[in-house]
């Protein structure tokens, strides 16, 4: 049983990982067909993972309601919103869920008038918080903070028309700052990040990194 629960998944990850690396370099049509098939399987399995995510969310709120935790009443609204959207999706303008997705209808109405404004407003609020944070915490305490502050101000002025009004070369200075020192630093970070990503991927394939299997038992 230990073999099935722990060892078999590691063997599968290793074999599939090595195959995926190998077929990247093999130009033969069979290898390319295999890559295409495995990629398609991966996509289909990924869509089931979405269902897992939705179930997890609903389960979390169900537990909150069942245990009457603080704020459990709000979890009812999660179910209300979910039910409204799901009914609209299943109704599908009278065509039902087995027909192709219909254009327009309650599903689109809820998307454009509830989902989009709520999502956009959540992000729009950040403008206020970032202004407050900039006022309260952005202090030029050290030399490095001064460099950061000057770069930020140059970029903020250079990227908008007001910068061009203040000094005609401000946009050029901003662009040079982005294309040279910023680019150099970002490239350094990028090289480090992707070296780490390659190392992590190798650790996953060779079974050193097992956190994706979840759980600590067996």
């Amino acid at each position, binding site marked *: 049983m230990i073999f099935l629960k722990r060892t078999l998944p590691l063997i599968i990850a290793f074999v599939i990982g090595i195959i995926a690396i190998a077929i990247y370099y093999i130009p033969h049509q069979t290898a390319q067909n295999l890559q295409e098939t495995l990629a398609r399987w991966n996509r289909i399995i990924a869509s089931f993972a979405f269902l897992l995510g939705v179930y997890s969310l609903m389960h979390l709120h169900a537990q909150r309601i069942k245990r009457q935790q603080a704020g459990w009443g709000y979890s009812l609204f999660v179910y209300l919103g979910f039910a409204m959207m799901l009914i609209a999706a299943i109704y599908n303008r009278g065509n039902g869920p087995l027909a192709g997705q219909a254009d327009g209808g309650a599903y689109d109405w809820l*998307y454009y008038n509830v989902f989009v404004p709520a999502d956009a407003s959540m992000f729009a609020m950040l403008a206020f918080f970032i202004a407050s944070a900039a006022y309260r915490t952005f202090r030029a305490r050290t030399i490095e903070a001064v460099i950061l502050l000057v770069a930020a101000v140059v970029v903020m*002025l250079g990227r908008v028309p007001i910068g061009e009004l203040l000094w005609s070369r401000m*946009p050029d200075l901003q662009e040079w700052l982005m294309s040279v020192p910023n680019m150099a630093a970002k490239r350094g970070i990028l090289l480090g990040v992707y070296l780490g990503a390659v190392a992590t991927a190798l650790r996953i394939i060779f079974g050193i990194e097992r956190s994706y299997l979840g759980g600590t038992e067996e």
Partner: protein
Amino acid sequence: MIDRLLNIDRRIVFLFIFVGVASAMLFRLPLPITPRPDVVSVYEGIDAVKGRPGGTVLLSFDYGPGSEPELQPTAINIMRQCFQNNVRVVGMALWPDAVGLARAAFDSASRACGKEYKKDWTFLGYKPGMETLIINMGQDFKSAFGQDYLGTNTNEMEVTRDITKLGDFDYVVTLAAGRTIDGVWITYAVDRYSVKLGGAVTAVMSPDMFPYLQSRQLKGLVSGLAGAAEYEKLVNVSGSATRGMQPQSVAHAIIIFFILIGNVMYFLQRRRDRLASPSGVASPSRFANPSGSRG
């Protein structure tokens, strides 16, 4: 006075931002908008497709409603540019949240330019998988997208009939709010499937894209709302992005003012504490905001 200013209620700061942005939107002043070279590169890349028989551009909608003000105007203007030059447009989404926005963009642009669905444009919809979807599209486009969003077979549509793989598209533009542009398109599509890639990204992501611009993996870049306004200038449209530049400028000025005032107050407070302290050294406990303060 200095302490009160430094610990001001954050809602006052919010009010300044709100009033500044709202008043800049209500009272218009013409501001110069000069398209930058990276934005011009995207425009010229799409312009180069004009005149090619069966020239088709792929737009990948990889953003959600949270990034709509920055990327939606660029999407619509790129489509308009393509339609005006009789270039076909195929859309797809790597983010599920983008589907409705993409459909709205196609509706708006195709109606404005009198273009026909299935003949001049189509929207393929969303498929999960990110890099695995790109690999599928790279080798067999029709196996990745057998049907479009409305269920029409891609073999039956004039706009996608001759597309067999990703490299058949003359230009690809990814409108990205996340890591799909570098983690997916640049890594898996550009090198392997010889894709000409242009990008339109949110301003947050823009600084990270410059290494790819320099290495020419990314052929051009439209950054945020300012980039969208520059693109509108190139396609001779005065849309929401252009109108957004005035409040953007005012908001930046307000925030720079706040940062400067904050620092001036901070240094004045330090100087005051240093002069007041018997040892002539400012006490560090006075620098931090009291833990009970808001924001």
